[in-house]
């Protein structure tokens, strides 16, 4: 047999895939694949000719959930929102089953921004891990560094200087302010309001310039070190901080004027996407989204880390659990963070900002867990050391990832337009979801 033998066809790779697909379909007890116009499935109905072909994936369903999602009932169609879509917060893909404009089912497809950060971290030394975690949740890079820093300090048994702890708390609260401020803008943008996002960015720009003054970078700060922080506060930081403090309430207030009492905004967010406290807890939601459902859980209060047990603050909650409550929760937390920043600046002690740590850290074999309250919820790190210079296992729990799984629960029954209003109010950051 030669390749030129006319009687013997060598199947090309695409054809092989189809054969494999037929085998999988047969094994799963499914019929042959539906092709538009072949008389099977919704394609036979002329009014949907072509459209089911566009929506259905060209492979057999692999789980029960997929099979349920991909089975179209009368009058339904699948709509792909993303990964290229104006408001999917990066590269999220929502697979939406709609009847007219009403959503009947929804699934979140992830993985378009996966960079393998956990594995990268396992191949890095304990010091360089802190540079890799920055671009995960890029809206809260300071928090991303905070959790591994605490975990590695627990592993190695280092006491962090008091001044370093205060500077850490200061920068993470600053980060929380601009993250929540931008969420207000994103929520408005996803509902067609153009201006709040730009006001949010004015606030963000002032804050990242402030953080750049202390860390040297605007977005991926690389500021934390195992055993302390990279730099002490400098004059420029202090000048900018006082200027920022006098402006921040105004820039946040501008956005509040545009949104909080806005008839259209409240009409679109109140009573929308109600997440009950029971659902929120059972789905593992944390952070502002959980507190907006009325559950008073804040890692800073429940399991105090850093210096939060020395600061005065209350856990804010909202009873309603809808999109508007999640928005109001963020607004309240911005004010709370500003209040915390005032306290931290007042109490800031003198002293070193970095403990004595060797160049290459080799902790004793063991494991450590650290959880912090990031702007999106409980962000935690679990690190295992085998005595070498790299973490043996490095696991990060990103709150956005957990939060996204409430979408299929919240959305059915709402309209397509509400998808974005609910998703933006949950405030997921895809860099953190896909890691």
């Amino acid at each position, binding site marked *: 047999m030669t390749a030129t033998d006319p009687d013997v066809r060598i199947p090309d790779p695409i054809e092989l895939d189809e054969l494999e697909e037929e085998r999988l379909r047969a094994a799963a007890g499914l019929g042959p694949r539906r092709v538009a116009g072949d008389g099977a499935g919704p394609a036979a109905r002329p009014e949907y000719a072509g459209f089911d072909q566009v929506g259905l994936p060209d492979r057999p369903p692999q789980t029960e959930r997929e099979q349920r999602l991909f089975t179209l009932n009368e009058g339904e169609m699948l709509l792909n929102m993303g990964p290229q879509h*104006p*408001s999917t917060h990066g590269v999220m893909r929502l697979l939406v089953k709609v009847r007219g*404009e009403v959503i009947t089912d929804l699934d979140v497809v992830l993985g378009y921004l996966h960079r393998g950060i956990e594995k990268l971290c396992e191949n890095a030394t304990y010091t360089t891990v802190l540079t890799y975690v920055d671009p995960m949740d890029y809206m809260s890079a300071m928090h991303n560094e905070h959790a591994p820093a605490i975990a590695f300090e627990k592993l190695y048994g280092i006491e962090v200087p008091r001044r370093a702890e205060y500077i850490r708390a200061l920068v993470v609260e600053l980060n929380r302010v601009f993250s929540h401020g931008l969420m207000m803008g994103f929520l408005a*943008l996803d*509902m*067609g309001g153009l201006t709040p996002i730009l006001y949010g960015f004015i606030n963000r720009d002032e804050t990242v310039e402030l953080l750049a003054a202390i860390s040297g970078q605007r977005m991926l700060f690389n500021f934390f070190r195992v055993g302390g922080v990279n730099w002490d506060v400098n004059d420029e930081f202090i000048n900018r901080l006082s200027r920022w403090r006098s402006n921040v309430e105004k820039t946040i207030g501008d956005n509040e004027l545009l*949104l909080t009492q806005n008839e259209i905004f409240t009409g679109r967010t109140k009573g929308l996407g109600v997440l009950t406290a029971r659902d929120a807890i059972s789905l593992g939601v944390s952070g502002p989204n959980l507190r907006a459902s009325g559950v008073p859980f804040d890692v800073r209060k429940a399991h105090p880390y850093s210096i939060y047990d020395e600061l005065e603050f209350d856990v804010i909650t909202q009873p309603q659990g809808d999109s508007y409550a999640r928005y109001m929760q963020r607004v309240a937390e911005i004010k709370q963070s500003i209040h915390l920043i005032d306290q931290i600046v007042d109490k800031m002690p003198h002293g070193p900002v970095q403990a004595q740590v060797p160049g290459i850290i080799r902790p004793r074999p063991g494991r450590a867990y650290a959880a912090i309250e990031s702007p999106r919820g409980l962000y935690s790190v679990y690190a295992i050391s085998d005595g070498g210079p790299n973490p043996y296992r490095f696991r990060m729990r990103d709150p956005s990832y957990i939060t996204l799984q409430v979408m299929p629960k919240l959305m059915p029954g709402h309209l397509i337009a509400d998808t974005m209003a609910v998703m933006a109010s949950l405030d997921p950051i895809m860099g953190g979801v896909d890691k």
Partner: protein
Amino acid sequence: MDLDLLLGVGRFVLATTLLLLLTVPTAFIIIYLELKVIALMQLRIGPNRVGPYGVFQSAIHGFKVLAKEDFTPDNADRPIFTMAPWMVFMAAAMSMLVIPFAPGLVALDSEISVIYFFAIIGLSVVGLLVAGWASYNKYSLLGGLRSAAQMVSYEIPLTLSIVGVVILTGTLSFTEIIAWQHAHGWAILWQWIGLPVFFIASTAEINRTPFDMVEADSEIVAGFATEYSGMRFGFFFFAEYVSLFIMSAILVTLFFGGWLAPWPFPAQLSGFGGMIYGLFWFLLKTYFFVFVSIWARATLPRVRVDQLMGMAWKVLLPLALVNLFVTAIVVLVFGL
């Protein structure tokens, strides 16, 4: 007889050509205004590179659109896909025929120009609907169907809200409505329920924020225009801004005295001077309402589809009917 007909046809062709040409600077001016005004409201600088203060930015946008690839999706219904932008644009351009710009400056001074206007401007919904259908894209389809639902719903309060003015003035001709307002004062003095109904319904009718459901970019990408590119998209884009101008112009004509100055001085300019004077006031008032629309776009988020429809049927329609009956009774009793 033959000469009259020939002159009439010649006048019509000339007027239509001039109005078609007028759409270009109108759209350019409004696009520039929108870019600049929203930028200033958002504490940005806005266009400032092309020409002084960036005034040629919208012209550059126009050339960019011309130079882009004109792409047709494989499965699109080609003839309809090609024709849809033309239908939308022509509906907007042809309705400009009856707009009275100044004394003597109106292309078609018909006795039923109000009916003509609402008949022609309503045609654009057909263009949007077939654009959404012919694109072979789900977002386009949703956008097209939204446009059908929205524009058909809002035609009703829109048309009812001006019946008050028509009863008040007793005419269906825009120029005579202005003449009535010249004698009795602006119609807004009597039609202060009609004005908000007309303004909201016209904003919805031309798909402006906060009622831009049809091309809601954060929900359905670009709605009916998702698959359009190049000059075909340009026509949609142009039509949108020309419609904004037209609706503001009609609002000014119906409620704010058209080309009349806010005070009766100089009382009666005639000839070319009167034309320029009238054109000045007409454009000033019209661009003020264009500005209001841009202002709304910078300030307000978008309403939801069901809220939009609810508003048309539950709020605007009853208001328009109340306005209609009250006006009718007042006119009957006091005989204005």
